[in-house]
């Protein structure tokens, strides 16, 4: 028989049978036993896996001393070497949910060990960790324990054995927010016609793409004296030095590049576009059409602006995920801020 997979269990003081609210301040401890829900959970794993022990921590202690609590807990995880960590279920207990989420994020981020937990959909812990852990959707009180544990155990088995995880509604977990491409049994046009017919007949229909929610960015304050300001040039128009030395992608960029432009008066001549989302002919003739270094340098000479920042930053915008774009923006923004840049000309295509 195959070796049993090892589960490490996390519970709070109440489910760890230490006590109620009055014991919420207790520091974490580890017991090589199946305590509270870990006992029933262990039974559900059958011959395939076993709970090797339970970590118990007071909810107040965790939330008020997160660093210390996590240091202890992570040490236990490292020593015990579980295949998977299970926390909760926390139902609608906010502090317990946040503790489960804190443990889940640390275990996934630092050790890349999968985590299964259970929470009521409105528990604040859900938003904290749902993208990293599998959060089984459970009732709002401990009365839902009997329903919660089998779902959590099923997911645990699948994860431990490396099996494919099904849709959230099939497996009972709260969507992690991953949009995965799969095959439908009908082509897209057929699905569109059926959806339209449902709408026209006043029948129920379900969109395949709920509209995204956008961040709102407050504009920075105006620069009061441009003649003293350092201005940087940043583009998502795919303008790079000839030969594309950093191999930035023509679509769906995974990186950005920065190039010293302190000694040139224009991009024309040394730069071209690798952007896959527009007609490149005119940009290749004159890349300053996309990223106007030529004009900025003129303004610098005329004293209209104080200085053009010595590095030019660039990436490709077409098909680039917002996740990557956000990362690039934070990284580039940090560099510019540290360099004392006052303003940025940011061009697309």
């Amino acid at each position, binding site marked *: 028989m195959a070796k049993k997979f090892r589960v490490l269990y996390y519970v709070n003081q109440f489910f760890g049978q230490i006590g109620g609210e009055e014991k919420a301040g207790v520091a974490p401890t580890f017991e090589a036993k199946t305590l509270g829900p870990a006992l029933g959970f262990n039974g559900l794993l059958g011959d395939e896996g076993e709970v090797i022990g339970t970590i118990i921590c007071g909810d107040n202690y965790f939330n008020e001393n997160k660093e210390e609590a996590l240091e202890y807990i992570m040490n236990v995880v490292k020593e015990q070497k579980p295949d998977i960590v299970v926390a909760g279920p926390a139902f609608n207990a906010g502090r317990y949910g946040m503790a489960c989420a804190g443990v889940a994020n640390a275990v996934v981020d630092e050790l890349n060990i999968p985590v299964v937990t259970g929470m009521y959909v409105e528990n604040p812990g859900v938003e904290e960790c749902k*993208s990293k852990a599998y959060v089984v959707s459970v009732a709002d009180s401990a009365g839902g324990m009997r329903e919660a544990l089998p779902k959590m155990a099923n997911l645990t088995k699948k994860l431990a054995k490396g099996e494919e*995880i099904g*849709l*959230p509604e099939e497996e009972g977990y709260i*969507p*992690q*927010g*991953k*949009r*995965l*491409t*799969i*095959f*439908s*049994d*009908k*082509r*897209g*046009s*057929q*699905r*569109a*016609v059926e*959806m*339209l*017919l449902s*709408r*026209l007949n006043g029948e129920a*229909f379900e*969109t*395949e*793409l709920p*509209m*995204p*929610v*956008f961040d709102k960015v407050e504009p920075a304050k105006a620069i009061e004296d441009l003649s003293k300001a350092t201005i940087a040039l940043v583009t998502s128009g795919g303008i790079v030095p000839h030969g594309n030395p950093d*191999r930035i*992608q*023509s*679509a*769906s960029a*995974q990186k950005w590049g920065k190039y010293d432009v302190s000694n040139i008066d224009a991009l024309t001549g040394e730069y071209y576009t*690798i*952007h*896959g*989302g*527009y*007609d*490149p*002919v005119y940009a290749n003739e004159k890349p300053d059409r996309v990223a106007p270094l030529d004009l900025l340098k003129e303004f610098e000479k005329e004293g209209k602006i104080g200085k053009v920042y010595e590095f030019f930053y660039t990436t490709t*915008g*077409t*098909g*680039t*995920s*917002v*996740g*990557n774009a956000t990362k690039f923006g934070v990284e580039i923004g940090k560099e510019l801020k540290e360099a004392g840049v006052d303003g940025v000309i940011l061009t697309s295509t």
Partner: protein
Amino acid sequence: MKLELRRIHIKDIQFGNETVVKDGILTINQEELVNKLKEDKRIKEVKVDLARPGEKVRIIPVKDVIEPRVKIEGEGNGFPGVTTKMAQVGSGKVNVLYGAAVVTVGDIVGFQEGVIDMWGEGAKWTPFSKTYNIVVDIKPVEGLAPHTHEETVRLAGLKAAEYIGEAGRNIEPDEVLVYEMGSHAEESKKYPDLPRVLYVEMLISQGLLHDGYIYGVNSQLILPTLLHPNEELDGAVISGNCVAACDKITTYQHQNNSVILDLYEQHGKTINFLGVILTPELTTLEGKFRTCDYTAKLCKTLGADGVIISEEGYGNPDSDLLMICKRLEKEGIKTVLITDECSGWDGMSQPLADTTEEAVAVVSTGNVSHVIKLEPADKVIGDINAITTLAGGWEGCLKEDGSLQCELNAVIGSTSEIGYHNCTVKLY
């Protein structure tokens, strides 16, 4: 208009001494085809190759796919306004070599060309792994400007399809599909109680490798325009090899536009299908306002109750898609949108570049950045190294053993926004 698409089922392809169809087997005289294409002095060299479903063959970089056909009755054989003289298409009889496709490859023009795998994992992701493909590899003379290069390749593909289509002229079809629809007045009289439905087909119209053509007119130059659905099924609209491979509407997909076909199927049963509005996706804000307002006005004037809108490409055209949706919904016209999404390698990013609360009914045809692994091919037609510069590829995505990793971006027709393929997205 009444159009008969008379399908001759092609069951195999081979080279031979003449270009003929016999017992479902398409034979091609390679030399004659090459000479025909080399009549264009801008073409230096042509190679022709065959790829059958199931063969361990990879085709790259693919520019366009075209269905070989011949019109045996009625005006407008070929592609009027492009390869043949102007004619009003949409009526008559067309013999179709159904199951065969001309696929153009050759020196890369831009980054929007793609991959077709005829077998295994890759075959699942493209509808053109199921066709018997005649691959035409075109090498132009040196020194052609990019726009001329693109045009040369585009015309060569269309001509190849016309030449091969001729082989079907006197062959009895296996199946005859009839598409008939009268004037709006006639159809409304026949089906007074059925909801009136329009199809808005957006065409990217943004320069080299980003244009569509209608009777030879670059879609950049038009105001949104109404077509009888038969016109598109009969060769009025062709691809300018545009946009990322995954969601470019190839000429083949215009000839067999799946939204038109699926709406036609319902015409007279559940809906009264009014026709197709072709809408250019322009780059300027003014252009977007003009075309979106104009499209909404056409839909309203024609009395549509419901509209299906399909996008081509992604990014800035997402705005056009949602602007049209918003305008129509405000007029009380119900919409369904078809689009793909850019949710990143991990699927965790927001899927569109724009948003509007009116877009309540959307069909998703896949994440263009979904990464797939393709095993090595026994034979590559074209140039495998192109993958590192194509949209959807990257430096290092081609492994030493010939296997590759790429985004769906690079796979022809994988996330077709006219819903030609079966991909969709689920939230996990």
